[in-house]
Every structure is written in C-alpha cells, then in structure tokens.
C-alpha cells in the first residue's frame, strides 16, 4: 500500500434512531435483536463502522436490506445526520477537519464540490421537472459556475460519455428509461470531477442488459477518470465485478472486510459464507 492519504476516512460511525437506553448502549450483545433494542425499541442502524477509501479504489459495501449500507452513504452525503463518528476527506482541509462538525453552509460546499452521489431512486437524485442538461448543470451551478455556455458544453461531454444521445439533452429525465435516468445521474455526479463518487444500488431494478451497460459505464469511468467510488449493493455479482475491496454489513455492523476476491473465495464470517454460497 502506498503512503498517499486515503481519499476518505470514516471513523467509528454510528447512527441510532431513538434515544437508546442503558441496556442497549452498554450490553448491545444481549439487548439487541437484529439491530433493534428489545427494551426501548431504538434502532441501531450503524454501530461503529470504520473504513478508508484510497485514491482510484472502488470500495464495495454489501449486505441485506436494512443492514445499514445506504445509511452510510446518506451520512456521507449529509442527507442524514450521524449520531456519532468522524469522517475526513483528503480534499477537505487536507483531511484534518471532521466533515460532520462542519456548518450547514460548509456541508453544502463539500457536497457540491467534493462529492457526487447516484441514488437508487432517480426521483431523489434528479428533478423531473427540468431538462437533463439543467439537472447536470444544477450541480455545477451549486458549485458557483455562472457561465451557461461552459456548463452546457460540459453537460454535452458528460452525456456523450454516459452514452445518452445529446439531441435528447433538453428532454426531462422523466421521459427516459430507468437505465438512462441512472446514466443522467452518473453524468450529474461526475460534473464537478469529485474525488469520490457514492453509488447507491445503481443497478437495482434495471433489467439485465441495462444493468450490464450501467456497470460497463462505471468500469469505464473508473478506468478513464480514476475517481474513487463507494459502491453499495445487495448484489454480490455487481460487487465481484467492480469492487477492489469489500465490506460486509449485517445489522449495522461490519462483519467482514477485505479484498473482494478473498471474501468471495474464502469467506470467514458465517454470514458472509451464507451470502457467498447463495450466489452460486
């Protein structure tokens, strides 16, 4: 491993829905059923998650529904407030300042300049009342670009890159197929050349051939742009195809982490074993 700073470091991230009680805070092993406290009903969506993402690396996060995968991305993109934990971006204050203590205005700046996110549901990531080009420009406007010609040209390049016919750039993504909507989201997320992309179940709900095209695109972006990515998926096949390293989540905890190949070939944790064998 090189000595370069990780693009992103997440340290001891926890997210709790509910106030928690003495039982689930001090004796989590006995008090929790899954991720929910038997006594107070508090949901421990994430408990002490830590990881690093290195430059150009794709980190896969895999696990069943409700295991906390998306919550990690929501916290990183400031869509949700973590209960505790720290996160550092190499591109923000040289990795010295915790993202989650930044002010609302700074958070917006980080989000608009240093992060790109693709939501599972395009309705969350795109405004269906605007054209595709305006959706992409939104991210650049948010990052203080005020030049229409330049933003339009950049959007055109990104749409070509994501293989959306540019004669449809003024069409609302509402009129696009699911796969095209995801590609518009990817173009939008890439518009400011962020050092890291957050991809949340990007291929879920797409049919297989469209899935393959979106996955191809992600591979190509990785090769051409060299951007680091966090790829959240419940689909091990997607993870196996794209991720260099993988974290396996269950009930808000990291049960296993390592090189993707290693996890696939030689899963250690019983849950991972179950997951891997179910793939066959």
């Amino acid at each position, binding site marked *: 491993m090189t000595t370069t700073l990780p693009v992103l470091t997440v340290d001891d991230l926890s997210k709790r829905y509910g106030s928690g009680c003495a039982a689930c805070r001090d004796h989590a092993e006995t008090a929790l059923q899954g991720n929910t406290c038997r006594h107070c009903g508090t949901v421990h969506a994430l408990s002490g998650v830590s990881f690093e993402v290195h430059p150009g690396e794709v980190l896969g996060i895999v696990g069943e529904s409700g295991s906390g995968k998306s919550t990690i991305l929501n916290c990183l993109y400031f869509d949700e407030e973590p209960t505790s934990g720290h996160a550092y971006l190499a591109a923000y204050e040289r990795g010295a300042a915790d993202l989650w203590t930044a002010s609302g205005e700074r958070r917006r700046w980080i989000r608009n300049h240093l992060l790109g996110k693709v939501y599972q549901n395009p309705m969350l990531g795109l405004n269906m009342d605007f054209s595709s080009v*305006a959706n992409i420009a939104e991210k650049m406007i*948010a990052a203080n670009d005020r030049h229409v010609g330049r933003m339009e040209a950049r959007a055109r390049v990104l749409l070509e890159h994501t293989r959306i016919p540019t004669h449809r750039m003024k069409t609302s993504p509402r009129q696009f197929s699911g796969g095209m909507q995801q590609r518009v989201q990817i173009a939008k997320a890439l518009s400011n050349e962020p050092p890291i992309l957050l991809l949340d179940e990007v291929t879920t709900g797409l049919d297989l051939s469209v899935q393959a095209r979106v996955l191809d695109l992600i591979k190509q972006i990785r090769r051409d742009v060299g951007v680091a990515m966090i790829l959240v998926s419940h689909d091990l096949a997607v993870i196996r195809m794209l991720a260099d390293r993988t974290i396996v989540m269950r009930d808000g905890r990291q049960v296993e982490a390592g090189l993707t190949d290693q996890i696939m070939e030689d899963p250690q944790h019983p849950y991972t074993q179950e997951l891997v064998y179910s793939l066959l």
Partner: protein
Amino acid sequence: MSRHGTYNFAFLDEGSKREIRRATLKAIAIPGYQVPFASREMPIARGWGTGGLQLTLSLIGPDDTLKVIDQGTDESVNAVNIKALIRSTTGVTTSDDTAEATLIQSRHRIPDKPLRPDQILILQVPIPEPLRFVEPREEVTRRLHAERDYTGAYVLLFEQIMRHGDVTTGADHPVEVHDRYVMAPSPIPRIDNPKMDHGDALILLGAGREKKIYAVPPHTRVTSLAFDDHPFRSEDVDGRTCELCGAEGVFMDEIQDAQHGGTSFRCNDTSECLARMNAHARTS
C-alpha cells in the same frame, strides 16, 4: 379621525399595527429577508393586496398623502377601492401625482418618476418566496436561505435559456439584495428591477396571504440574477411611442384595435402619462 366612529384610525387596532411595525423594522434591518407576521383578516380577500394594505395602514398618519397604483394605473377597481377604504378610515388625502404622495402602495409597478427619501413605496406581493417553484416546502426554503443556497433560482433561469434561448421571466425576475438574500421583487416588469438598486426611498414588500414582510432600505445594492454570458436585460421598449403623450423608453401597454386591426402603445404609468399630456397642453 375616522369617519365611521366604529373603526380605529386606519382600520387596524393599535396592537396589530405595532406587530406589523415590529416585523417591518426587522425587515429593514435585514434587507431582503422575509419576516413572518400575523397577517390580519382584511375587508378585501387575501391575494388582492392585503399585505400591502396592512403595511400602508400600519404606517399611515393623518398628515400623509396616499397614492395607490394597480398595474400602473391609479383608477382601476382595486386601486380605487383600497383608496376608498383607507380614506374612509383615516381621512387622509389621496393623490395620483407620484411627487405629491408620501406613501405609495403599488401592485406590479414601481412608478416611472424617481422616488425621494421622504417617500415610502409599498409593494403587494403574491408569492414572496423566490425558490417556491423549485422547492414547495417552506421548512426547506428557509434552510436554503439560511445557508445561502440559491442554486434553484439559477437552475430555473438556466432551464429557460435551454428551452427558449433566453431568460423568459416576464415579471418577478429574482434579485439579490446586498450580496446576501435572494428576493422576489414582486411581479414588477424587469424594467423596474434596476429602480430598486440604490434608490432614495424605502421599499417595503408585503405578502398578506403568505404572511411575510420584507424590505429594501434606501441605498441598498440590488442586482438581478443573471449568468456571465447571459447578462440581465430588461424588456425591449425600443421603437415604441405612447400614442397619447409621445413618451419613449418607458414601460408600455400594448393596445389591440379589434375593429380596425393593428396595435398601439400607451404608457403603463398613467399618472406620468397624464402629466406629460398636461405639460404639452400648457406649452402649445
């Protein structure tokens, strides 16, 4: 004093006036920021100028001279009725002459004659939130203002340029007040936007239905939102001449002649038009 003994001076009770004045003072202290206030039930329907009316009633004194404009004219039904209500509950004199008035309540126009420091302009506002079309939730737009995120206002303009090749805001083109808050200037034509910048008179804006008061104090920087390669432009009035007074370069109404065909133009600001006609009559 009141002509009808049953009403307090200027219709509103003193407690209500004080509440409105408090909101007004806060609005002046934070230019462009929308201050919530407890909009009263008025004898005209919400959406018909109740915000402006409440501001006027909270400010007016027996020595004031009032002018009310409805889309440029002093004589349309709305302007006449608002004047009648205020006159009958205050006894103040009203005037059509912009220069004579101390308080000017207006819907959709800023008078063509530059205002003086001793005058106050009160604009009626239907939708005070410039981000409302991109974000319907008040909870969210307040946070966007707090964090100075005006992306949505620019995306709206960008989308217009993409679809139509140019900005298509007919009226209510958003402005940034003193490099901080983005504000809806009320549905004034774009030609009126520059009149807000570094003006001599206090401008107050009231939205009765939406329960908001905001302000542009005198000598405040007001810039219309624009892009580097699409600078702000007001309506093109070149080549239009008022058929009544002969004025050029002012905002005009387009009049269609249904019987004979053809279009003609007349000044939208009727009191200025009348003043020009009177001046012509005197000299000829």
